[in-house]
């Protein structure tokens, strides 16, 4: 076997290992567990939470918009991977009425502020707590995202890392005139 072939095999091995690694990262939640359409479409529980900016975030302020409510934390890998896609989604559909709201389940705001700047987040982020977790049925694993319609009703709940195309498809469906 000549040298070129050996190098080629080594590169192929690294490429396969890399591919398996990233495939592995995105396969951790069974597909059927990711998407849960919420039966009966209950009203999203109202809440007021302190924003990173110091202002108070009231969910009721956003009634009339499509709200993507994302429970996340800076220490949560799949959450971090979703954020840049949410930033893009917010830019793309802001004018049509999409409002993304992040609720950080970090234990304190310092790492969240740093993360917010570094990732150029373009939507409000509030600091969550156990009470809001319980209001939303128990946020006992991250990420968890709720898609809320213009009428304030929960249209979908996504548990675990979810492909951005799923959020975009659902958002577009809700943005269409009824």
């Amino acid at each position, binding site marked *: 076997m000549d*040298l070129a072939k*050996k*190098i080629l095999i*080594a590169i192929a*091995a*690294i490429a396969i*290992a*890399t591919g398996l*690694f990233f495939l*592995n*990262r995105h396969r*951790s*939640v*069974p597909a059927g*567990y990711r998407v849960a359409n919420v039966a009966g479409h209950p009203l999203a529980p109202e809440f007021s939470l302190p924003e990173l900016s110091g202002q108070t975030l009231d969910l009721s302020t956003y009634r009339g918009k499509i709200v993507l409510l994302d429970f996340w*934390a800076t*220490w*949560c*890998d*799949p959450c971090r991977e979703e954020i840049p896609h949410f930033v893009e989604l917010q830019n793309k559909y802001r004018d049509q009425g999409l409002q993304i709201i992040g609720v950080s*389940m*970090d*234990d304190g705001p310092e790492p969240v502020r740093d993360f917010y700047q570094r990732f150029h987040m373009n939507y409000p982020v509030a600091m*969550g*707590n*156990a009470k809001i*977790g*319980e209001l939303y049925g*128990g*946020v*006992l*694993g*991250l990420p968890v995202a709720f898609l809320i319609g213009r009428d304030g009703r929960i249209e979908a709940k996504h*548990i*675990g*890392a979810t492909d951005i195309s799923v959020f975009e498809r659902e958002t577009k469906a809700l943005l269409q005139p009824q």
Partner: protein
Amino acid sequence: MNLSVEEGNVVFTVAVVLLIFGSAVFAFQASSIPASRLINPEELVKILQSPKGEKPLMIQVGSHVLYEQAHIPGSEYIGPASREIGILQLRKRVEALPRNKFIVIYCGCCPWKHCPNVKPADDALQALGFTNAKVLYISDNFGANWVDKGYPVAKGE
């Protein structure tokens, strides 16, 4: 197989690259904790509900917000072990214990392969020489694999 010096160097370099890559991929993952140190939720529940046998010291090494919502009754919150402060508190909590103490650490913040906390906590206990320290295997999250199963839950600080 006879390799020239040049070929030997290439093979060595490739081996090093693969080794570094492999280490980087698995070093911080819960997946790299040996199966012998894992305990399943159903096994732990049996131990907790059994009138006999030693009960473990249970330590939650994840988020306090999640702990407040639901945790295993009797378990202690120590702080996220992915951060230095969490590891320091863990060491402080266990340093005086006999090294054969039955300890169970758990998190459940994220799917197992993404959990940033259990591996550093397990590493810390191993480094301290604990021979009967287990990690609770939570495949999806604490809600799905513990609370939704109807296992005992406590709330609050």
